[in-house]
């Protein structure tokens, strides 16, 4: 409490002074400084390291500023242009998996988020917790749990055999089981942002729309959906980006039936010991994600959606 008071005194005393350094301890600077410093020190550095690595020759395993090359970019781009090599396929696969995952999680999450935010009153905490607790277990073991569920002689088999079903096509190692995995793993990242944004819609806004003749569909399309846009955007961004990086998840269930960029990068850094090539692919992945992200965030200005108060 007394620390608070000191802080309080200091912040507001400083606010009145003209010292430019002192303004750093007033909002908004004091609020954004930790994050900015953290990222400048511990994020920009590694990022630069990776970019530098991507222009190192051969199988370099340490940075040598004297030599540099664009051979890895040439290999990747050349391969994509000529249709040789894996990079083109991998890019398409990765984008497709991420896009499908984003759409599927959005479609599945929205109604649930809506129900939680606006329809479910009793036992809401219970429902929320039930949705959260699976996340306390590591991703790979949970996906392995799906494998236990789906494999021959697995849990599913024992369940369906109760209903007399015995012959059904194998579920593992299909393309769609990758989507099952990524959907399963990333759905919370869609569900909770949407839930939050739906939570902040005022009841009266909804009442007014109904009053003006909006049927369910119109209400959804013109009011609820636009007002939940921040959540949808942030959720989609999370899911798309995270599933671009999907590796273990994709592999366990899909049995490698789709080869994704993250697996490929992982592979370059791991088994094939080719850091520069991995870094070059990584820079490629980065460019793709950053461009997507910037486009999305530019087209939709979060602040605009939010200006709800009055002056």
């Amino acid at each position: 409490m007394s620390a608070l008071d000191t802080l309080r005194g200091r912040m507001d005393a400083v606010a009145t002074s003209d010292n430019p350094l002192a303004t750093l301890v007033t909002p908004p600077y004091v609020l954004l400084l930790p994050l900015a410093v953290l990222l400048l020190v511990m994020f920009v550095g590694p990022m630069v390291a990776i970019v530098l690595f991507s222009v190192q020759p051969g199988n370099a395993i340490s940075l040598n500023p004297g030599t540099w090359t664009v051979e890895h970019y040439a290999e990747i781009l050349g391969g994509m242009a000529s249709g040789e090599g894996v990079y083109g396929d991998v890019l398409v696969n990765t984008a497709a998996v991420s896009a499908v995952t984003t759409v599927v999680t959005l479609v599945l999450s929205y109604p649930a988020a809506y129900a939680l935010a606006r329809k479910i009153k009793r036992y809401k905490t219970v429902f929320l917790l039930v949705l959260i607790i699976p996340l306390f277990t590591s991703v790979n073991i949970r996906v392995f749990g799906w494998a236990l569920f789906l494999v021959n002689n697995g849990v599913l088999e024992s369940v369906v055999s109760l209903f007399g079903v015995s012959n059904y096509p194998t579920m593992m190692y299909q393309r769609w089981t990758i989507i099952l995995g990524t959907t399963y793993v990333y759905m919370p990242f869609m569900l909770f942002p949407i839930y939050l944004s739906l939570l902040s819609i005022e009841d009266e806004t909804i009442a007014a729309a109904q009053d003006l003749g909006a049927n369910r569909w119109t209400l959804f399309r013109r009011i609820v959906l636009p007002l939940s846009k921040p959540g949808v955007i942030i959720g989609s961004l999370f899911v798309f980006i995270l599933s671009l990086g999907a590796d273990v998840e994709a592999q366990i269930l899909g049995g490698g039936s789709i080869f994704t960029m993250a697996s490929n990068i992982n592979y370059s850094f791991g088994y094939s010991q080719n850091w520069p090539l991995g870094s070059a692919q990584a820079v490629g992945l980065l460019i793709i994600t950053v461009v997507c992200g910037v486009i999305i965030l530019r087209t939709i200005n979060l602040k605009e959606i939010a200006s709800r108060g009055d002056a």
Partner: protein
Amino acid sequence: MLQATDLRKEYGSLVAVDDVDLEIETGEFATIVGPSGSGKSTLLHMLAGHLEPSGGTITLDGEDITDTKPQERPTSLVFQSWALFPHMTVRENIEFPIRTTGRSVDGQVETLLEQVQLDPEVQADKQVSELSGGQRQRVALARSLAYDPDILLLDEPLASLDYVLQKQLQRELADLNVELDMTFVYVTHSLEAALVMSDKLFVIDEGDLIQTGPPEEIYREPNNKFIAEFMGDANVFAVDVVDSDGETVTVDSGEFEGSVTVSTPIDDAPEYLVVRHDDCVVEPTLRRAVGAPVHVDNVLVRGNTVLVECSSTTTDDDYVAEVDYDHFESVDIAVGDTAYIQWETEKSILVPE
């Protein structure tokens, strides 16, 4: 005809609307008045379908609509808090109900904005957050009008507007009521609006509907002391009935000189004599039928009228007379004087508690 029977809303132990019965004819301009917190908004929200009644039924032309969804009722509510869509421009807000009803929007937004005295060129494409309070309120009104409802429910739709605009829009609403044959249910705290515009007035207090009738009747023949005072500034005197023959009643009081005999429509024995401020004058001597001796405490000029505030020389009561500026100038009254607040017999309103 919009009809509510035994309509009731409870919030926990608080009865916000207490078994209200009301009938509003198609095309009628019905006004609901009542003190803050008396249940007006609650009632309107139930009529609009946004609030589930705790009891009672609502019928429209005989059909039970108690459980009908808001979007399926031919009603539209102008919310007391406006409830504009924050993510839409003014135009989009107004187009919203036009689109939901599948009509074409062309030109309508402009017409509606003009109807509520907003300049379409300047305001139509603004964000709601860029409007002033009064501008928002008018957009909310225009939006409800755009829905073209059979029944327009208005929850203090002009509260944030200046006097001139209020007048203009009151007139506009009254015209629309007639032109469009739209039923209006209007909640207002503007007595002037209530008195001038309405066909029927409902007075509600603490959730109870305490008087219904044409506004003039309520003004002249209030049911009780509360309504009498609520319908306009008035002085109140406790009275005793000295004679009563069913038609007329005679009262007197220790607080004023003279006894009053008037006809009264009220069944209950009157306990108070109410006389409006603007029916009273203050003059040095008692020159009218009834009057009470007072000290003049304060004199406030209010445009063309003057408020003379005074206190009884015999009791603790305070009284006010609202007199013509000219009249005030013509009699010789100043703060500190002793004088008579006085009025003609027929201005006396006798009411029970």
